[in-house]
């Protein structure tokens, strides 16, 4: 196990202030990066193998290299919308170590040649936004932001933008539309944000955790960083563990450790007397895994091989006392509420899935409805502009596949009890009399 990189002494009093952050060697990486050319910084990022921590796991260095060269208005946007259910790692980072994020943004902007950057923070994070705003003012004052940073050619402004509560704004193009002051509807891709993003300019979008890792990479060197973790998933990862565990919270792990170690050794496992029924390895949009998958190493490729995904690194543990239909309904209702309505498969598919699950729960469904519901999921996946619909279809599809027996039992049990409580059918004469009178 390695030392923690991002969480190192994160509860140190006053770490959110510039004085304490600098006393710990803060902004040293920025000084070092500004002495390098943008392509040298980019080379370090590429050597590090750092993959995006927001959900898609795309290599950050590659993303930066997609931005066109030449002088034009380029933008960097930090995605701090953190709305994937179960995820709360960025919250802890921004609240306790805001300058680390600012330093990472300025370094990444240097590598990408961006001179305007934005942090899009979800509106609900008021405490974190206030802390970031104070930190921004301090960094601005000290010359780490603005024109000609630390006397070099690199300039970068940074604006904090507060959202107003919408899951879809965590999707990169939805976020860009929202940042432009519109409804947060995702855009058709391509063109990708690297070519046409914010205000139609080339834009680099990265998650808070990804950007907060950049100073460490500059400090230790990309190759050294790549020695952490496993080959295709380098470095450390913040994992948010929640649900039926005894010690829910954020943990920093080296990628590739067995999932069991995270759920049991770190988070304490489910409370005594209960067992794990299933768990989401990467937020509520990842296909569920069962207790049989606890030995799968926690990294991007192993999770994909196990039929799920690492996503944002949010593990939600569900114990055996929770009915699977209830869980599926909760997931589906969330995505129905958050669907922006732009693409039909997602808008209608989430709605129908909720209705079918409610039918199952109220005893109106037959086992055939399960197949219809599974086919609805198949029709959503890959057919929308963004992956919000997929994000519902994947976990619901996996629940039907892995817990089909329980769904069928639930259907039968609900039918049986619904028949017992059905009101007697009034005879025709009384109905006619009521209609007449």
């Amino acid at each position: 196990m390695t030392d923690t990189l991002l969480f190192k002494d994160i509860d140190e009093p006053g770490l959110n202030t510039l004085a304490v952050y600098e006393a710990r060697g803060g902004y040293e990486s920025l000084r070092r990066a500004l002495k390098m050319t943008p392509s040298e910084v980019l080379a370090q990022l590429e050597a590090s193998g750092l993959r995006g921590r927001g959900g898609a796991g795309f290599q950050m260095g590659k993303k930066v290299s997609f931005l066109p060269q030449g002088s034009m208005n380029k933008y960097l946007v930090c995605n701090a919308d953190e709305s994937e259910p179960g995820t709360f790692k960025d919250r802890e980072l921004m609240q306790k170590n805001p300058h680390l994020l600012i330093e990472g943004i300025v370094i990444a902007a240097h590598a990408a040649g961006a001179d305007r950057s934005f942090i899009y923070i979800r509106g609900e994070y008021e405490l974190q936004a206030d802390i970031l705003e104070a930190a921004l003012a301090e960094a601005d004052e000290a010359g780490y932001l603005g024109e000609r940073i630390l006397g070099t050619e690199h300039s970068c402004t940074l604006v904090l933008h507060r959202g107003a509560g919408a899951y879809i704004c965590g999707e990169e193009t939805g976020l860009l539309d929202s940042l432009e002051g519109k409804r947060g509807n995702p855009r058709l891709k391509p063109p990708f944000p690297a070519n046409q993003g914010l205000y139609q300019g080339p834009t680099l979008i990265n998650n808070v955790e990804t950007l907060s890792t950049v100073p460490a990479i500059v400090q230790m060197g990309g190759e050294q960083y790549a020695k952490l973790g496993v080959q295709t998933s380098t470095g450390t990862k913040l994992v948010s563990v929640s649900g039926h565990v005894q010690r829910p919270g954020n943990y920093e792990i080296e990628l590739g450790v067995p999932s069991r170690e995270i759920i049991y050794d770190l988070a304490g496992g489910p409370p005594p007397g209960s067992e794990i029924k299933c768990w989401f390895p990467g937020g509520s949009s990842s296909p569920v895994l069962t207790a049989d998958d606890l030995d799968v190493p926690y990294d991007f490729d192993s999770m994909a091989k196990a039929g799920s995904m690492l996503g944002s690194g949010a593990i939600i543990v569900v114990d055996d006392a929770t009915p699977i239909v209830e869980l599926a309904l909760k997931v589906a209702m969330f995505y129905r509420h958050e669907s922006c309505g732009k693409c039909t498969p997602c808008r209608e598919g989430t709605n129908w899935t909720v209705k079918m699950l409610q039918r199952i729960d109220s005893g109106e469904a037959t086992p055939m409805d399960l197949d219809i519901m599974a086919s609805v999921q198949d029709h959503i996946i890959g057919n929308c502009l963004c992956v919000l619909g997929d994000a519902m279809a994947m976990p619901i599809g996996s629940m039907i596949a892995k817990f089909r027996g329980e769904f069928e039992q639930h259907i039968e049990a609900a039918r049986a009890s619904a028949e017992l409580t059905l009101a007697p059918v009034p005879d025709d004469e009384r109905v006619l009399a009521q209609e007449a009178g």
Partner: protein
Amino acid sequence: MPVPHPERAVGWDRPADLEKDPATIPDAATTDVPAELRKTIEDAMERYPDRRSAAIPALHAAQEVHGWCSPEAIEQVAAVMQVTPAYLDSVASFYDMLENRPVGRHSVYVCTNISCSLRGADALLAAIGEAAAANSADFNVRSFECLGACDIAPMASVDGVYVGPLSIEDVPQLLDDARSGRPVLPDKQLATRLVADPKANSQEFPAHAVEEGSSR
């Protein structure tokens, strides 16, 4: 069983008044806007290359003044930003934190997403709703999708302050604190919580560490 549609904008099913002219950009000179609100919106517009980017911050500021995104609030923002009220309406109706109807003064968002509901959020929401029902002018109690604080599940955001883990017994004090303007359940605020990872800190740090030295 009818399915409620909380996400639909109010009045979506009412017929349009075809006699009425569509609202145009209000005249900045003749629309009365509180000076402070005008300044907040103008400052927000200045921060972006395109002034429309300030739509959400501007509507937020107007909501603070008017209590919700009322037609009057929208009109004032439209006058300062020089956009149509319809444009702002389209934005205001998209986001959960912008209110499209009059609501109680203190917002109580109860997270009812998976992690919180696994730990009893639905009963908590019912209890808070019941306790606040008599004072609907004081409270805006609603269920909210994942607020990003599953480590303190079940939790609520009371006027923007995260508190948890909550039990039913906390409800009277939570509402009382919110109404009287006291800090809400100080012992249960997220701001005072240390990170869960035992490897993170090399020494013991006191709780409340984050608050010190911050500009709040």
